[in-house]
């Protein structure tokens, strides 16, 4: 069953109901990840309220909303990046291919090998370009010999659209690259361990428009093989790169639907106000 659910525009906060997104339910996409009744607390403060969402396979899903709306908190729930935060509690059910990702028997390190992440600021390791990409495959034992490792590195850099720019200087430090190149290096590093899902937390916010366009093209290409979830402050970017968009406000999922619909004819007044620049 691939019914996408989202919280109905809330009139009564105590009884969140599920709304079937018709447009989304119609097409026969496969659901990669689901969230049901997800509540997140930082100590006594509640950051997310009853979030229901389905992430479709091999598609880009964008999470938008004003600062503090909970979109990054939600993104971090998807690969348990909230675990190390003291006082953070996650309630509800989150699944990857139907399996509970908060199962106590599950090793979060292995989970994060399946769900990679790219951050706001490019953060290459203080190592060579080659070693940056080879790091993951090495610790996860994905290559049996040096030649295979080299192959994985080359392929990952190729997929990240960086190979042509760096193939003659793989031994140079990753930090010697430009900001946009560093971000693509981080994407290469993320895909080197062959994840199924890539989470991106504002991956272009420190990049210029040309580097941003490169990353966006990359997202298009990568979405053929990977499920991508991106948090972005740029509404135009969400409109450009994603197939579905979720709008968060004050810790609630206000509206979730096809990106075309969200940006031309949003159903909820709060979505309309936010994307047209009437509050934020």
């Amino acid at each position, binding site marked *: 069953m691939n019914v996408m659910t989202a919280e109905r525009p809330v009139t009564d906060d105590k009884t969140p109901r599920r709304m079937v997104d018709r447009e989304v339910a119609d097409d026969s996409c496969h659901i990669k990840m689901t969230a049901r009744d997800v509540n997140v607390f930082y100590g006594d403060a509640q950051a997310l309220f009853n979030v229901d969402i389905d992430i479709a396979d091999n598609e880009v899903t964008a999470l938008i909303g004003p600062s503090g709306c909970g979109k990054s908190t939600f993104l971090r729930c998807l690969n348990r990046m909230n675990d190390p935060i003291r006082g953070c509690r996650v309630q509800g059910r989150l699944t990857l291919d139907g399996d509970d990702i908060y199962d106590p028997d599950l090793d979060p390190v292995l989970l994060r090998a399946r769900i990679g992440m790219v951050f706001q600021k490019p953060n290459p390791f203080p190592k060579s370009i080659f070693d940056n990409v080879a790091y993951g495959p090495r610790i996860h034992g994905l290559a049996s010999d040096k030649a295979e490792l080299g192959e994985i590195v080359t392929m990952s850099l190729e997929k990240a659209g960086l190979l042509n720019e760096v193939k003659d200087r793989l031994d140079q430090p990753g930090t010697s690259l430009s900001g946009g190149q560093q971000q693509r290096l981080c994407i290469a590093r993320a895909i080197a361990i062959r994840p199924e899902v890539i989470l991106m937390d504002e991956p272009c916010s420190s990049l210029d428009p040309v580097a941003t366009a490169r990353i966006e093209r990359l997202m298009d290409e990568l979405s053929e093989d990977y499920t991508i979830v991106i948090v972005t402050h740029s509404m135009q970017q969400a409109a450009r790169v994603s197939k579905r968009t979720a709008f968060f406000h004050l810790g609630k999922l206000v509206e979730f639907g096809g990106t075309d619909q969200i940006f031309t*004819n949003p159903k909820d007044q709060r979505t*309309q*106000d936010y*994307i047209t620049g*009437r*509050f934020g």
Partner: protein
Amino acid sequence: MGEHIVKTYDEELSGLRTRLAHMGGLAEEQLAAAMNGLNGRDTALARNIIDSDEKIDELEREIEEKAILVLAKRQPVAGDLREIVVALRLAMDLERIGDFAKNIAKRTFAIAEERPFREFGSLNRIGRLALEQLKNVLDAYARKDAEKALSVWHADEELDSLYNSLFRELLTYMMGDPRTIGTCTHLLFGAKNIERIGDHTTNIAENIYFLVHGEALDVKRPKGDTTSVAHIDYVEK
């Protein structure tokens, strides 16, 4: 809808709306004046109408220019985007309506040369209805009233049926007295212009519906003008 965080954005949008309201008012005036000119064989008024059309054209150019600028600067989405797209379309429709009023005015010169003709009743009826429709659709736009736009949309059928009977009526005059052929032919063209104004008014109504609801009006437009396939039997006297 609330205000934008950026105030100048609101000013740009309201600038578009103001210009459209101005343009709509001018189109209304032009149509009313064109009908009066025709009735009174008033060539001075007709000349005035022809000259004034330039003002409507100028407003259309201004609206287009401003709308393109807002698109480029603000990258509008959702309701704002519809507002701008609809403004562009409305400006085009109103410009065409202005042109049709001008065409009607042009007929005044030819009719003034012909023998006096008294049978203006039906033409005036269709003119009044078109004017009322135009006024109603402009009201609907100003109030973003999709219901009212919808009623204008439905009323176009009446305009079409009036046009069809006027077509037959004028043919009857021509058959009855061939000396009226000159005047009646001009009136027939004038009536066709009015019928086309009705079609553009219908376009505007559809766009108001889209503006308010975010989706196109999902009904088939009635095909009202049947004169293209009309067959008239000539009766020997």
